[in-house]
């Protein structure tokens, strides 16, 4: 296979920090990675689509259960709240809003799988920005085959009131609002702030409100609830099956935001437990804490744009595509046909440890590096929400990728690896705002021997986009160096658990000329 500049650039444009497997083709690598079911947009799903049908069947099962059954539809909704007593466990107006509802939606997703015996089910979502009218499959009282449509709400006094053909207004769900949301930072501006005065992990802080609502909660979240009418503007809103389509989209937006931004690392947020707020499908309580809820894949679902836990990353981190190019699939990038792709390789047997970063020096072709450093910066697509255009734009520029092959990670579930550019020691308090920051990754699938390997004992490999950091560090420099430094730093996002070490067997820098 010949690697053209365009294929490399287009693929590279979609990669920030992604996982690739070593010594296997990229397609095989992805096939070997156990990916959880992908949540899909309702747009285009027919009434008899297996996703819609499974959800409808499950809602019917729950609605027909005895009133005192744990999985009765009303009983489950009561975890959120009810009409007479208001909210029960669910937080609104504070920084627990997003993680609490992520777990709540995941709880229903698991229950649906259990009740229908369909383990491939993933909760769909209503992308009200792309499809602002109410999802059609939720509207008629009967399905086209004459059966009860359990997704319709027809209780007296609780019918939805929003006109079926009227779109949700653009000033609450439109692209401009979404752009404002995705560019909001830090977490407490994006996902609502902490309650004023919070000084402990007492559970009373979860439901008290008192934070400043960001646009995500204040505008599309609140107003889509209110506009739909019926159960939705009330504390008993989960009694409308559309609740989970709405909150699935809110959750997806959080996951999208995480591709570019980090969550709060404040222990008052990360360590807060939601004790006995949810049920497992076996009826026992599920009591996750906030830090258990960062990564959708760890909760058994995906939105299709992450293959591993990208805890934080550079602005270009987007998605690892299903089809990878020869650069990533080859055993080593140096095997790739030359041309406009130049590679530099260092073999390595040293480790990054909690006490010492691993510093590597890599000789690179100066002319190719100059092409990358001097090319115009390319937007991530978040600014315009036009990812396709951003990818096309990236194809016109030069790019640099770093491939860390066969990375042995001890204590992978509690270790995060950050990559910085340059030779100067990285300070202990360095963060993604540091101009030398390239990206970071953590392992999701901890199979094999507990060293971050998959089931067939291959060590994982990772690819990161160096372009932004190179332009920031060397863009204003008078001379372009012939050697670049990469520093690999191990840490822990949550402050809990032992920080392990990371040892890449080989590091490759791939420079693609524009």
């Amino acid at each position, binding site marked *: 296979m010949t690697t053209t500049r365009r294929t490399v650039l287009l693929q590279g444009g979609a990669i920030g920090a992604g996982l690739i497997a070593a010594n296997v083709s990229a397609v095989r690598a992805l096939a070997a990675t156990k990916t959880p079911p992908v949540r899909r947009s309702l747009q285009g799903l027919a009434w008899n689509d297996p996703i819609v049908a499974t959800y409808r069947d499950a809602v019917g099962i729950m609605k027909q259960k005895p009133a005192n059954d744990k999985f009765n539809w009303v009983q489950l909704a009561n975890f959120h709240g009810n009409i007479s007593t*208001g*909210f029960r466990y669910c937080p*609104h*107006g504070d920084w627990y809003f997003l993680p609490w509802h992520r777990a709540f939606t995941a709880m229903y997703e698991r229950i649906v799988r259990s009740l229908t015996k369909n383990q491939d089910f993933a909760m769909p979502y209503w992308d009200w920005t792309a499809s602002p009218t109410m999802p059609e499959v939720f509207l008629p009282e009967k399905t086209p085959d004459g059966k009860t449509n359990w997704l319709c709400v027809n209780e007296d006094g609780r019918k939805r*009131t*929003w006109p079926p053909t009227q779109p949700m*207004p653009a*000033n*609450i769900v439109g692209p401009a609002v979404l752009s*404002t949301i995705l560019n*909001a930072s830090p977490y407490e*501006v994006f996902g609502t*702030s902490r*309650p004023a005065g919070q000084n402990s992990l007492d559970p009373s802080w979860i439901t*008290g*409100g*008192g*934070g*400043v*609502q*960001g*646009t995500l909660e*204040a*505008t599309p*979240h*609140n*107003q889509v*609830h*209110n*506009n739909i*009418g019926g159960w939705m*503007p*009330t*504390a008993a*809103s989960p009694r409308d099956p559309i609740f989970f389509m709405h909150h699935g989209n809110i959750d997806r937006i959080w996951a999208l935001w995480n591709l570019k931004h980090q969550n709060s690392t404040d222990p008052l947020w990360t360590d807060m437990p939601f004790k006995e707020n949810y049920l497992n499908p076996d009826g026992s309580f599920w009591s996750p804490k906030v830090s258990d809820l960062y990564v959708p894949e760890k909760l058994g679902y995906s939105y299709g744009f992450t293959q591993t836990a990208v805890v934080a990353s550079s602005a270009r981190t987007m998605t690892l595509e299903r089809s990878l190019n020869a650069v990533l699939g080859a055993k080593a990038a140096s095997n790739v046909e030359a041309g406009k792709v130049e590679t530099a390789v260092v073999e390595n047997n040293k480790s990054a440890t909690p006490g010492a970063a691993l510093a590597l020096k890599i000789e690179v072709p100066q002319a190719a590096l100059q092409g990358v450093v001097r090319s115009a910066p390319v937007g991530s697509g978040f600014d315009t929400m036009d990812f396709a255009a951003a990818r096309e734009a990236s194809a016109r520029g030069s790019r640099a990728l770093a491939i860390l092959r066969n990375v042995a990670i001890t204590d992978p579930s509690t270790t995060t690896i950050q990559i910085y550019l340059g030779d100067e020691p990285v300070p202990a308090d360095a963060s993604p705002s540091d101009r030398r920051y390239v990206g970071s990754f953590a392992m999701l699938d901890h199979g094999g021997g507990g060293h971050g390997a998959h089931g067939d004992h291959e060590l994982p490999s990772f690819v990161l986009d160096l372009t932004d950091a190179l332009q920031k560090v060397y863009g204003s420099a008078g001379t372009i160096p012939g050697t670049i430094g990469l520093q690999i730093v191990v840490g822990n996002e949550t402050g809990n658990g032992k920080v392990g070490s990371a040892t890449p067997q080989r590091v490759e820098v791939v420079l693609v000329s524009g």
Partner: protein
Amino acid sequence: MKRTKGCAIRAVFAVAALSALEMAAAEENDARARVNAPARVAIAPARQPPQDDAGRLVVTVTGFKPAVAGTVEGVVLIPCGTEEREIGRFGIFPQQPFAAGNNTKPQRFGFALPAGCKPSQVTVRVEPSAGDGSGAELVIGEVAIE
């Protein structure tokens, strides 16, 4: 003993009366917005320097009455140059009456300030999203740049 008890009772009444007066004063200082009757509120001086250059406008809602039928939303506008610019919208969820008090906190909403805008007051409008919004009322407390 009796005298002590009497003093205690008087003290409780005094505290209660003071609290009632404070609440009444707070109510008077709050601005009410209804459909076609926006509230205009002066922006309080920042207690702390904003976290970034532009800062963020935080609108505190201390009370809400829903519309008799349908739903409403709040629209936040600031003067910027020669025009009045909308900087965001918010909904009250759940859409039911509330009044901030002992057990109920106010609801607070943050909006990014456009670069170059240095407003000294804010306008909050009540707009119906469904129905005509009659009966709906937002009580606006402090508005500040944080």
